[in-house]
Structure formats: C-alpha cells, structure tokens
C-alpha cells in the first residue's frame, strides 16, 4: 500500500533517482505545454491565453481525483500523505506578494526553471531575483518571523476547515473548473489576439 517509499516498499536509496526522473517528466510536460514562455503565462491575467488556468486546474483535479480514487481502492493511504500546513496570514500575504511577482516577472519558480533550460535570459535573471528574494527574507527573518510562524492551524485539509465530504467537494470543484474553462474560452474569443 502506498506511499511506497515511506512504507519501505521501495528502499529510500532510490529517493534521489526517483526525484530526478519525476523532475524530468515535470519539466518536459511544463515546457511542452508552453510554460517556458512568460508571455503565454501572463496571458491568463489579461485574457488572451488561458493555458495556465487550464493546465493548472486540470492537473490539480486529475491528481486529487486520482489520490482519492486510489485511497478508495486501497492502493494509497491519504492519511499518510504530506499535507501542506496552514499558516493563515503567511499563506495570504505570501500569496499576494507572489501574485505581484508573477504578473511583474511573468514566471513562477517552476516555469522559470523550464525557461532557463531552453536559454531564456529573462528567466535566468528571474531565478537570480528569486534567490535575492530568499536572501532578503532570510536576512530579515526577525521581521518576517511573526508572519511566518503565526496563525498556525496545523496540517489541515478542507474537510477539517469546511466540514465537507471530500468526494462531494471534488465533484463541486470539478464543476467549477469546467465552468471556468468554458468562460475562459468565451473571454478569449472576445479579446484581441496577441501573437508572441
């Protein structure tokens, strides 16, 4: 029963090799979907290209449905998976800052790595920027610490916060995603086409 490495079914010596293989697949799919192009990524914010929205939500849905389906079939124990912890204000304020960085720079860290791999100079500068940002945070950690450590709710999921059944939530989330795909296509047809 999964997850395989934490349960010792695959020895942990394979960890790094698996990391590289998963990374290769991740990088290949991101680049092939056009995520090495900042102008394509930024399109989601201006309504001329919704690839980010479509790829992102499709991926999240396929992964969520897959995880819960494998749990239902008994191949994977959802309870053993790492749940990203909730630090309420850190998540909100960090997210807002990342949003400004996204629309200003046109990349997020994963996509900038893809663009670096194919030689985009703006992406190399962007990665340098990220490292400077991490450096600023680390040096001024005493300033950010209350935000970073505060409002901790534990490794909670939406079932804990909203009291919803996960299967119903996934179903509703799927409907929301499909509606947003339809709306995004309508918006894109109305907007002027941008070639890049």
């Amino acid at each position, binding site marked *: 029963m999964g997850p395989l490495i934490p349960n010792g079914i695959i020895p942990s010596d394979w960890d790094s090799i698996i*990391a590289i293989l998963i990374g290769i697949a*991740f990088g290949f799919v991101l680049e092939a979907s056009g995520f090495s192009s900042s102008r394509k990524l930024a399109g989601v914010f201006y309504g001329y290209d919704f690839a980010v929205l479509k790829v992102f939500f499709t*991926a999240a849905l396929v992964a969520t449905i897959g995880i819960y389906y494998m749990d239902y079939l008994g191949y994977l124990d959802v309870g053993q998976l790492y749940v990203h912890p909730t630090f309420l204000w850190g998540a909100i304020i960090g997210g807002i800052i990342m949003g400004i960085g996204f629309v200003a720079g046109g990349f997020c860290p994963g996509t900038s790595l893809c663009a670096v791999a194919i030689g985009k100079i703006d992406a190399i500068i962007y990665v340098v920027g990220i490292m400077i940002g991490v450096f600023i945070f680390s040096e001024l950690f005493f300033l950010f610490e209350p935000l970073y450590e505060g409002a901790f709710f534990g490794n909670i999921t939406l079932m804990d916060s909203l009291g919803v059944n996960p299967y119903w939530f996934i179903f509703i989330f799927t409907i929301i995603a499909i509606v947003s795909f339809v709306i995004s296509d309508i918006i894109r047809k109305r907007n002027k086409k941008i070639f890049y």
Partner: protein
Amino acid sequence: MTKKIKINRHVYWNPYFGGFLLGIIILFTFYLTGRGLGASGAMKSGVVTIVDTIAPTHAENSAYYSRFISEDKSPMNTWLVFEALGVLIGAFISGGLTGRIGWRTQHSPKITKKRRLAFALGGGILFGLGAQIARGCTSGAALSGMAVLSTGGFITMLAIFGSGFIFAYFFRKNWI
C-alpha cells in the same frame, strides 16, 4: 508559401492534455514519496549553500539558514534539488525536440529588453520573498497542496491568482 510550411515553434500541447499528464505526475509523486512537487525549495537550498560557503558562522547563527544546515549532509543534497535538476533536463529535452532552444529575451515589442529584464528581476525578488513567507510556491504550496485538499494550499492559490488579476492592470504595458 514556404513560410507556412516552416514549423511553428510556438505550437504547444493542448492544455488539457498537458494538465492531465501533469496531474498523473503529481499523483505518481504522492504514490511514491508521500509528498508533492516543488520548485522554490531548490532555489532556497541554493541560497543556503552559497551563504553557508561564504559566511559559515553567519549561516549557523541565523535563525532561518540554520534550519536547513546539518553536519553530515550538504544543503544541496535534498529531494527538491534533484527534482529541480530533472526539471532542467526534461525542459531541455522538450525544447530541443521542438527547436525552441536558444539565447533570447522574450518581451512584448512595445517594451525594451532592458525594461523586461528589470521587471523580471523585480518579479523574481517578490516571488522569492512571497514563496518563503507562504512556505512554498505555485508548485509546492498551491498545486501539491490542492492535490491533497490542503486548506493552506487553496488559500495560497487564491491569493496568488487573485493578486495577479488585481495588479495586472499596473503591469499591462509589459504584456499587451
């Protein structure tokens, strides 16, 4: 006519197909390792390594760097660093197969190269800072968090895209 026959380098996969495969990769990652994907974590490891090499005492005394330094293991020897190396290889293969590799700065014809690079640097600094405050970026916090229905993951996702849409107006000249 010849121009039309030439392969368009900017034809990408169908987004639903790419998204589906990406979802399968995330599912597979959770099935194997019990954790999700990430990207900014590798860059943090890079910063920790640089600071630890240049100023080891400063790194050990710092409340933040010291969390990622251990005696027996280099800060570069983490799962996310290997994964990030894989991302570079995978993207290079995909770019190579479609002829997208080359040194270039991509920007709107309405702005200069210098302006594009300045905004890329500024955007990177903000994203790096935000990703530390939120403990993860679009991959680690939002995407992998959403896959296991983490409340924090959903909040971060909404905050990133919400603020992106709100602030898009101020950066419109750079893109459209």
